[in-house]
């Protein structure tokens, strides 16, 4: 494994944005605390069923909670994008909505950002139906998709 230094993340305070009216959907219903959601679009290939990608993303958009989206985890890993280390080492459980867990873990390892064994749930849009993936993505921290495509 590389000895690449951990790049400290900082936060840009968005609260300086003056709040106006906040409709119910926009309130961060971030649910059982700080479960982080990462959605991979797999935008550079057509190996994830298009309708699954679309339905899961639409569901996340409607869920009214904060989440991260990336065009393609493979592309990020190839660049050894330091944000992957931030995701892997960040606080709170992490749910990655992407593809095969073995591949996703390999990508994070390639980016010098190995995922911890505990606290990470990988949901597989290549094999699982959108409804099941979405339900697991927005569920409580202990919930998950009981299928071969999902693994923690």
């Amino acid at each position, binding site marked *: 494994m590389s000895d690449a230094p951990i790049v400290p993340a900082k936060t840009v305070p968005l609260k300086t944005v003056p709040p*106006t009216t906040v409709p119910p959907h926009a309130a961060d219903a971030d649910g059982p605390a700080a479960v982080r959601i990462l959605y991979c679009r797999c935008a550079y290939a057509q*190996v994830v069923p298009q309708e699954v990608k679309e339905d899961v993303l639409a569901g996340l958009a*409607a869920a009214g909670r904060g*989440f991260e989206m990336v*065009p393609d985890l493979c592309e990020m890993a190839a660049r050894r994008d330091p944000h992957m280390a931030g995701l892997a080492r960040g606080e709170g459980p992490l749910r990655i909505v992407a593809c095969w867990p073995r591949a996703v873990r*390999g990508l994070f390892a390639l980016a010098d950002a190995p995922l911890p064994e505990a606290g990470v749930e990988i949901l597989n849009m290549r094999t699982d139906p959108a409804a099941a993936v979405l339900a697991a993505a927005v569920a409580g921290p202990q919930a998950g998709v009981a299928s071969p495509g999902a693994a923690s």
Partner: protein
Amino acid sequence: MIAQPPPPPRVVVYEGSGPVLPDAADRGRLYAALLDRGYAVTRSGGGAAAALDGDTLLVIGSFAGSPPDVADPTGRVSVIVRDVGGLSVAEVLAVVEAARGERRMNRPHDPATAAAGPAANTADTWKPWFPVIDLARCTNCMQCLSFCLFDVYGVGADSTLRVENPANCKVNCPACSRVCPEVAIMFPKYHAGPIDGSPVADADVHREKMKVDISALLGGDIYAKLRERSADAKTRFSRERSAEQALSERRRCLTKLADAAQIPREVLDALPSPEEILRRTEAAAARAAAAQAAIGAAAGAAGGST
């Protein structure tokens, strides 16, 4: 090798001051369109957006005509704010693209033109195709490092295998996964398992091992074959006298290997001369041997100290 452009700016969809688009379906379409254009996106209901030094954040929101002045106090993160209240999905996209300006970024292929494949693969449309190692299966036998002619693999500081130059990999070529005796090499964008990263069954291991012996596929030792080809090269190419004939000969000789290892024809056409192949394979084999010797020495030292 493709020199990759810098990472894309990240679009922060700030909805603490109201939705950027009133309809949830439109918001989904906006996210999808941004991702399909290569942007990373954060949906934020408030609070803060995590950023690293050097990042560019493009914050979009519905600010009632008065976009706030948001800045990183340290000045190490560029923050651009745009008010997109009342705009359509297409108009929001146009605002984002305009804010990006001339900044280069990698772009996914338009699905309509994706069939163009490797021929359309340029510095700004690089399909991220490269091997990913399953560290739980890899035994550091270095067969892949010895096999790859394009310096995709390397050796880390701890002498273990490492994917060093992903962008050197030939798009849609999974050949090195075929030489791995442990089925430890994945190509996540491959169409079938277990190379795509799906679970490995015992039957997969047996099946892949049958394909490992590339030399057998060629009817003998691959390096001996290459040396033989190298020795014959001057005679053969002087006899062929034309690039077209040389290409035809190369294709004929490698067809068997291509079929067995599912190597795209474009990759074969891009292969260097037999002499260069020989030079690279010997250099890679030397690196692999050195790495294995280092691993062995480390294991011996560890054993001796216990």
